[in-house]
């Protein structure tokens, strides 16, 4: 019986942590390919490089778990970022600029939430509209010109606390916040329930509309922060920054096991997903792989990683066919 149990446990570990296995395998392989890979410097580089999209990915994780998504994060990041930079240049206060960045991120996402909640607009369209509007807003505000000479502001993106880059510190904090929200708060529980079966959640007395708005508000703060970090990392207030980041953020979340059908996803998985992509980009550059070939390899490896992850899970579930059974909630059209 114990033998069975321990095999069971192993199975369960394998299933639940399969994505971390992928990360570990990648580390081993990358290290074998290039000895620089595991140097503190390189790892801290990678962490700093992925920090912006990973913070966005944490926001997407919250949203996708509850059946929503945010396509506007790349643009809102730019808008919040340039406004924050501008305000810094006007006031000279880091605190005010920081607060402003978060504020504008939150405001845009409040609009997203309102469009989704009160106008029943699908999240895809609502945030797509916001994506266009925020980008237009950022370009209008700056007349398409970069804002240079941002002075001390660069600390957010380039500073170090001890030997850890500041954006990495922020990424870790946001990761912990996300983990805490998802696992340890009422709100987090409600997110899973709303995404897993909206009607059942409603019938259990959960205020669906409020949960959705709150999810966007939190996402907004994350996006605003990401905007501040990106602008300061690149030492420029660029209204065209962050294009396509929504994709990268969603990719990290989905690789990490968050499901578009809702109700599933973890902060740890998303972090793993972000690192998988980060490692991949890094090692190919270290190895000097041709940039076209890189794309082909990158696509193949992402498919491979997720394929393995699914296999590990389905393998378990195939025996139980749970995967199929699980997805069988009658989906009410979100019309």
């Amino acid at each position, binding site marked *: 019986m114990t033998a069975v149990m321990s095999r069971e446990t192993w199975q369960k570990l394998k299933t639940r942590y399969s994505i971390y296995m992928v990360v570990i395998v990648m580390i081993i392989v990358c290290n074998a390919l*290039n000895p*620089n890979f595991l*140097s503190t*410097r*390189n790892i801290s*580089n990678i962490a*700093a*490089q992925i920090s912006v999209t990973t913070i966005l990915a944490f926001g997407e994780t919250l949203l996708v778990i509850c059946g929503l998504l945010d396509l506007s994060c790349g643009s809102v990041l730019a808008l919040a970022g340039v406004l924050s930079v501008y305000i810094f240049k006007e006031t000279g206060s880091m605190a005010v600029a920081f607060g402003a960045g978060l504020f504008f991120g939150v405001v845009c996402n409040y609009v997203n939430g309102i469009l989704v909640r009160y106008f029943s607009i699908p999240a895809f369209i609502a945030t797509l509209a916001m994506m266009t509007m925020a*980008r237009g807003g950022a*370009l209008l505000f700056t*007349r*398409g*010109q*970069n804002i*240079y*000479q941002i002075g001390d502001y660069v600390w957010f993106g*380039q500073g170090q606390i001890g030997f850890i880059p500041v954006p990495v510190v922020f990424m870790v904090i946001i990761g912990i916040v996300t983990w805490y929200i998802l696992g340890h708060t009422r709100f987090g529980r409600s997110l899973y329930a709303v995404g897993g079966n909206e009607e059942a959640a409603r019938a259990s007395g959960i205020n669906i509309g409020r949960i959705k708005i709150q999810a966007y508000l939190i996402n907004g703060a994350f996006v605003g922060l990401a905007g501040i970090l*990106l602008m300061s*990392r*690149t*030492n*420029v207030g*660029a*209204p*065209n*920054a962050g*294009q396509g980041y929504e994709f990268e953020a969603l990719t990290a979340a989905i690789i990490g096991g968050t499901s578009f059908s809702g109700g599933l996803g973890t902060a740890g998985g998303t972090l793993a997903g972000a690192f998988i992509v980060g490692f991949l*980009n*890094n090692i190919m*550059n*270290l*190895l*000097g792989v041709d*940039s076209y070939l890189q794309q082909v390899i990158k696509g193949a490896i992402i498919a491979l990683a997720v394929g393995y992850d699914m296999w590990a899970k389905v393998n378990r579930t195939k025996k139980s066919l749970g995967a199929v059974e699980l997805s069988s909630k009658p989906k009410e059209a979100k019309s």
Partner: protein
Amino acid sequence: AEYKVAFIARAQADSFAAWLANAIQDEAKKYPDMKVDVMDSQADDAKENAFIENAVANKYDLIIVQPNNGEAQRPYVERAVKDGVKVITTNARIKNIPGSSSVDADPYAQAAVNARLALKQVPQNANVVVLDGPSGNMHADMRRDAWQKEFFAKRPDVKIVGEQIAHWNKEEAMRYMEDWVQANPKIDAIISMNDNMAAGALEAVKADPRFTGILAYGVDGTAEAMLLIQSGKMTSTALQNAYDLAAKNISVAHDLVTGKVKQIDTDIDCPLVTKDNVAEFIAIHKKSGAIK
């Protein structure tokens, strides 16, 4: 206004194109009989072509096309000319379209002035990294071509230890550079097809004592590059002066719509900017408010 002019920009999210668009709008104010509408092709051929078609359908008197990809826009420009609309192609002219005019800065020359300087500056057996613009983009290709012919062909000792497409993008260039310095303890020069990417690469190594004397070449003459050159961090760039380009475009446009000239092809020059002469160019940016 008597005359309607459409300026079809390549991509207003591209900071040079945005600078040009703004300059064109400012410049147009000097001609009260002319109204200029700016359209943004978002770096997409199909969109740019659509704008040309729309402008013809909407009876603009003159269209200024900043092509995303000259060959892709060619048949549409040809058709516009056939439909009796006057056309100027600019910032990469489309050659050999009878009846159309052009105003340009030569992308080959822009890179070549830098490459010739690099020929003297880059040390023997140097390691360099190269940052490219999007493939298929005519400026990206011409500038890279100039570097190839004017520099790499003449310096077989120089080794390219990293070359990537960073899509004119500062953040992407920064990421590549961060990775390259891990794998290569010695990099002597950054060869970039525009200033934005050069600035990004410099950003990645600015705190690293191993790379204090690194050479960095760009193109465009953005405000940021000027400041970097002034502070000695960047080596050189070639100014593609959007004000000049705009002024010339608008005056040629005015001449064309008023019938003063029928057809004209003209170039602005592309001066090399180094620490020695950077002050005079900074003045240009001060005028626009990009540098305070």
